[in-house]
């Protein structure tokens, strides 16, 4: 097991730069998830760590040694590919033992290691099968097994669950988490699925357009997103945003106007008069009532566009003063819900961003 250190790493294809100076320290035994929209460079970063892509500039250290020019064979990392990349002409046992046989380990050692991994992954009954005779979930497990038997310095996962159906994905997600807890291996996991990121990671790295937006624990990212992008990316349904201009109230508190109503902004927001700001508020933090007033504060008039029932929650797609809002509530709403609805915003749940540079202000 080992630590990985990435210093000012860049990647360019010709004139196109896809990664702009990535800095990241990954501790021993840590589970890091790289998350971001497609094309943000997360897979490229992983492949550079693996050695499958050249490093254009910057340094990569594994356990303190510089790895920039070291071939993937010699980095001692294991990778689980999105497509699994199982060797089709080899049985499950041969697939899993391939790295050991390349190392020249004796047959008894290979059998023992493969057997142990198969036990952990519930693959004991399939060892003689070819990959084509396995289901998607089993193939995925074989790919994991191939990584486990090697006892590598770190595991790299490139969207390993994206080819599975939703139910299996949830199941395998839990298995990966359990496996990490059992093995305690340093892991880097790439995904575009923020739920996977939230549930698996010790720390999440949010990437956007080849830059790191924020690094933090899942709850840090959820509770205190440092940029509007992170706020919008983490959390489902997506955070609601509206733009406004800062006003200063009579008691010197900053206010923002939305839908004809003035709302107090958080006290700690670093704002000044007439500053354009973007306010973000999570769908779970909004309150919908049929009366304009609630606890002495005014709500904004809203009309219902759509009601989605998920069973546990109800998602209301609203039109609030011309802005599309999603409200998630535990209360059951029905299609004959009253036309006149009011949305209430609480000051303490507001995320304030600078409209100009999208950085957090509170």
């Amino acid at each position: 097991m080992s630590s990985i250190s990435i210093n000012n790493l860049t990647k360019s294809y010709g004139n196109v730069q896809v990664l702009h100076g990535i800095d990241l320290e990954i501790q021993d035994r840590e589970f890091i998830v790289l998350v971001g929209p497609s094309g943000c460079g997360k897979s490229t970063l992983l492949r550079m760590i693996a050695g499958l892509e050249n490093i254009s500039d910057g340094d990569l250290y594994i356990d303190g040694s510089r790895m920039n020019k070291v071939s993937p064979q010699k980095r001692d990392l294991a990778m689980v590919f999105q497509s699994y990349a199982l060797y089709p002409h080899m049985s499950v046992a041969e697939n899993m033992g391939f790295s050991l046989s390349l190392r020249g380990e004796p047959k008894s050692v290979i059998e023992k290691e493969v057997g142990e991994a198969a036990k952990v992954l519930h693959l004991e009954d399939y060892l003689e099968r070819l990959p084509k005779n396995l289901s998607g979930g089993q193939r995925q497990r074989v790919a994991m097994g191939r990584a486990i038997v090697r006892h590598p310095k770190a595991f790299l996962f490139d969207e390993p669950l994206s080819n599975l159906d939703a139910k299996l994905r949830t199941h395998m997600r839990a298995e990966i988490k359990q496996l990490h807890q059992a093995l305690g291996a340093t892991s880097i996991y790439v995904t575009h699925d923020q739920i996977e990121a939230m549930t698996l990671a010790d720390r999440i790295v949010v990437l956007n357009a080849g830059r790191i937006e924020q690094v933090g624990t899942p709850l840090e990212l959820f509770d205190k997103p440092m940029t509007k992008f992170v706020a919008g990316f983490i959390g489902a349904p997506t955070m609601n945003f509206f733009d406004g201009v800062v006003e200063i109230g009579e008691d010197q508190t900053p206010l923002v106007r939305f839908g004809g109503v003035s709302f107090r902004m958080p006290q700690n927001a670093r704002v000044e008069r007439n500053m354009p700001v973007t306010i973000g508020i999570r769908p779970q933090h909004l309150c919908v009532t049929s009366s304009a007033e609630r606890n002495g504060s005014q709500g904004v008039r809203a009309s219902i566009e759509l009601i989605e029932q998920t069973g546990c929650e109800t998602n209301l797609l609203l039109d609030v003063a011309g802005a599309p809002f999603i409200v998630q509530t535990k209360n059951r709403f029905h299609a004959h819900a009253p036309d006149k609805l009011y949305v209430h915003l609480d000051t303490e749940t507001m995320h304030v961003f600078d409209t100009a540079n999208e950085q957090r202000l509170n």
Partner: protein
Amino acid sequence: MPRKVVHSVLCWLGLSPLLIVVLFPYATMLSTALKQKDEIFQFETKWLPDTLYFGNFVELFVDRGFGRAIGNSLYISIGATLVSLLVALPAAYALSRLRIPGQSAFRTYLLVTQMISPIVLIIGLFRLFAYLGMINDLNALVFAHSAFYMAFAVWMLQSYFDTIPKELEEAAWMDGASRLKSFWRVFLPLCLPGIAVTSLFTFVNSWNEYAISLTILREGSLQTAPVKIAFLTGTLYETEWNIIMAATLIATVPVAIVFASIQSYLIRGLSLGGVK
């Protein structure tokens, strides 16, 4: 009758004219090769010979030295197949996997070489091999044939290599396999169908080639099977159909053997289940 049976009967009925076209020459060959000379020129042609007569084959091998010709042909065809694979495999791999400047131009060039008929090049080739002292040398044919069919082999192998997912090799590299080892233990086994088809084509083309063999190999003992068969027709006052047909029958055997031994590799979908 169940629908399935009706379906297959109809299919066979539809295919039978084709089958006749394919099988007729073989039937003629077999029937003639097993007849005695006198029996062939009877006015009423019969498909079945009066007695099964194997004397034609004996004469072919003992008196006419046809075994020698088959041997020469085998040497040249197997040699040409091996040499062209030896060069085409790495070439196709490089074209498929590495980024090389001028790659598409090179591919086009390969295709263009296939547009020139070998006949056009014969005089040039003869002078070349004469200069190298390789007239009446079977190896000259090995090189000439492998050169002719190499472009096709590279083209065909590259198309096949392109279908092998790159991740499989990358997975092997991550497992600690060197480029050569991953090529040998992961890539090559998956390419066997492509390699089998390519070598089959090269072998058959080389086996059937006539003009260059005729030109370069001047000595009777070095003649290849197709040349020998041609010489059986025109050298005497009479055309000995029984001998010729026995020879053509024999000449089809190695191709049939090669095809039969390779066809188990031709199964498609060998790489199924590896990715996705």
